[in-house]
């Protein structure tokens, strides 16, 4: 049976044009710049100094507190120093700059291609390895994985849900991992199950990736307690709360964490990284990134070292296409525009997407006609048109009353709005203001 969530959602053209491009390693060269803050929470504390020699996979910045993550060197070479580097949105943050010299890996990392099927590790061991490897959620939010897997007292995790929906148009890196690293992925799922003592795991995959469903269903026979669930293609199926609803039918209560429903959701790439961290001793220093766009010469799915300049990825995919209106990091629905192509990639970078000028153009804004298309499209059951107006007027108390905190910024409202109102722009602003997330610079 094909499952999906009921409330709201849209289905934009899928445009998964890079789906057949196999994963490719991109060799690092030149200088890589690795941010000390690539996750939600406190920035990691740098433990290397200028002139130090580092190896690939060596710890270079230590997690600063519980909600933080270790950062490892993605290359071997000499540390050039810690500088303020502009990220893809032009915001300057401290980063460790390393001159690449060869590619000598840390000795503890198992680089063999052999699949390690040993599942004898205890829950504590697995969690310790995940913490050590600096794993973060690679679906976009980059929340430290060890924090997510720490089940609060009094709660029990019944099921692990793996998000293979990849509901954003264009993106295909998760799809490729499911096809090419299927077995490793399933071992990762078993490890996650063991880490939180859950006895069931679901992998939710949209039916537009039938080959991935077939591949994993075939492999899952050898691994007990894993169910592959076919999902109807619909955005935002991959949203944590939507995915739980689709697969288990349970609703995550307002202001509560998914653990309330006994579920822990993890992304495909994160699960693969769990396998690598636990079985291969390999910290998180590379991730898969889709380079795609209708006018791009070659579609690519790269495995990229963290800190590689975005411009290098683009060169490797045949350079920037002529008719480019916008470059986006992430999918077209939730991604953010890239304003700085010299910026290094992050742990959580998922794609570089070239949008043509025609696609990028926003329609002319007109007045809200109260058609309530946005209300019908909102997967969280909010009233976007109202939140938009309240945010525009900076009415924070009213925004809180109308549950602005529940907005997942998926962009369905903006997608359906016939008046082309910048709904998400303002709701996001109102949300951060109402929740006091914006702190004025000093």
């Amino acid at each position, binding site marked *: 049976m094909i499952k999906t969530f009921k409330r709201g959602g849209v289905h934009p053209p899928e445009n998964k044009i890079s789906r057949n491009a196999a994963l490719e390693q991109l060799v690092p060269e030149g200088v890589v710049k690795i941010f000390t803050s690539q996750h939600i929470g406190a920035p990691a504390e740098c433990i290397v100094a200028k002139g130090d020699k580092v190896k690939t996979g060596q710890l270079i910045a230590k997690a600063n507190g519980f909600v933080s993550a270790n950062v490892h060197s993605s290359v071997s070479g000499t540390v050039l120093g810690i500088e303020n580097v*502009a990220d893809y*949105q*032009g*915001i*300057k943050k401290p980063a460790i700059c390393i001159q690449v010299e060869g590619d000598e890996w840390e000795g503890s990392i198992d680089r063999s291609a052999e699949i390690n099927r040993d599942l004898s590790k205890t829950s504590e061991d697995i969690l310790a390895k995940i913490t050590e490897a600096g794993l973060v959620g690679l679906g976009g939010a980059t929340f430290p994985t060890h924090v997510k897997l720490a089940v609060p007292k009094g709660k029990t995790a019944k099921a692990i849900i793996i998000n293979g929906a990849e509901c954003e148009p264009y993106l295909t890196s998760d799809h490729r991992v499911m096809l090419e690293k299927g077995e490793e992925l399933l071992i990762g799922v078993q490890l996650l199950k063991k880490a939180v003592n859950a006895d069931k795991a679901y992998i939710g995959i949209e039916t537009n990736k039938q080959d991935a469903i077939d591949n994993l269903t075939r492999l899952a026979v050898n691994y007990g307690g894993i169910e592959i669930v076919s999902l109807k293609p619909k955005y935002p199926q991959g949203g944590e709360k939507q995915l739980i609803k689709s697969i288990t039918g349970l609703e995550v209560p307002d202001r509560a964490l998914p653990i309330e429903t006994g579920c822990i959701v993890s992304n495909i790439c994160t699960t693969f990284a769990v396998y690598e961290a636990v079985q291969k001793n390999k910290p998180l220093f590379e991730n898969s990134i889709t380079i795609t766009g209708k006018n791009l010469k070659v579609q690519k799915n790269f495995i990229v070292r963290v800190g590689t300049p975005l411009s290098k990825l683009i060169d490797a995919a045949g350079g920037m296409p002529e008719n480019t209106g916008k470059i986006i990091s992430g999918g077209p629905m939730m991604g*953010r*525009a890239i*304003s700085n192509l010299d910026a290094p990639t992050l742990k959580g970078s998922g794609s570089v997407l070239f949008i043509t000028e025609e696609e*990028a*153009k*926003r329609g002319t804004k007109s007045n809200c006609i109260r058609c309530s298309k946005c209300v019908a499209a909102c997967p969280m059951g909010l009233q976007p048109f109202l939140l938009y107006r309240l945010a*525009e007027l900076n009415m924070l108390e009213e925004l809180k009353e109308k549950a602005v905190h529940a907005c997942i910024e998926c962009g369905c409202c903006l997608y359906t709005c016939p008046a082309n109102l*910048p709904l998400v*722009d*303002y709701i*996001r*602003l109102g949300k*951060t203001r109402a929740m006091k997330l*914006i702190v*004025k*610079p000093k």
Partner: protein
Amino acid sequence: MDSTILTTVIMLGVLAATLAAVLYIVAQKFKVVEDERIDGTESILPGANCGGCGYTGCRAFAEALVKADDIAAMFCPVGGNATMTNVAEYLGKKVETKESMIAVVRCAGSCENRPRVNEFDGATSCAVMAATYSGDTDCSYGCLGKGDCVSVCNFDAIYINSETMLPEVDEDKCTSCGACVKACPKLIIELRKKGPKSRRIYVSCVNKDKGAVARKACKTACIGCAACRKACAFESILIENFLAYIDPDKCRLCRKCVEVCPTESIIELNFPPRKPKVEVQEKQTVNSENATN
């Protein structure tokens, strides 16, 4: 026929009289006794309801003025000293005269000085833009030019210059209520002393990057070279994070810093043109004559 009209008149008359009596009794019983000085004070205040005093409006401010014993710390920036003196006289309290202030925009990154490197097509709002990314130029501190300051101004005192795409303050209209200061997400606008004859000097830049980075992004950026600090005889210039700030309390308006600034990021306003510069246009020469007279 007659009796019908008569009955109607009597009925309605009695009804009206009864209701009037009820209304009168209720009005007396639930009468709100309010200090009449509040009305009096409110009538003296400008009635702009801008919130510049820190209260929600003129009525709230009037109430606070009447309630407080010492009103020296309270000030209506719109009405200024004249209004506050009138209020003090009316209430029999004391106020201190304050120097009048004005909003200054500390960014000179016009399109010419600070080239645009990308285009923002989101909602026309500085707040949205600032929450999204660093801005459409290489300077991540400068004005975004979407006019949040213009839309909050109750007095039409700030507008975007269509050539430079930067906000400019109309000196006659600005009441220094501070609404624009609060609205600017980049903290570019500052309330400064208006100065004698409206003459004032300030650093028109808020970029805290290293000199080379700042200069690359904008021709008129403060590069923190400290030439102004050396030139200043009154120790009025502070340099922190590669950015100069002129302390308005110490500045004696000698204009030496303006002359030495290599990037012309220090701005002087309403001064007569300097004498030795002969090559200036005719019109300005006339001005300088007027000034010397």
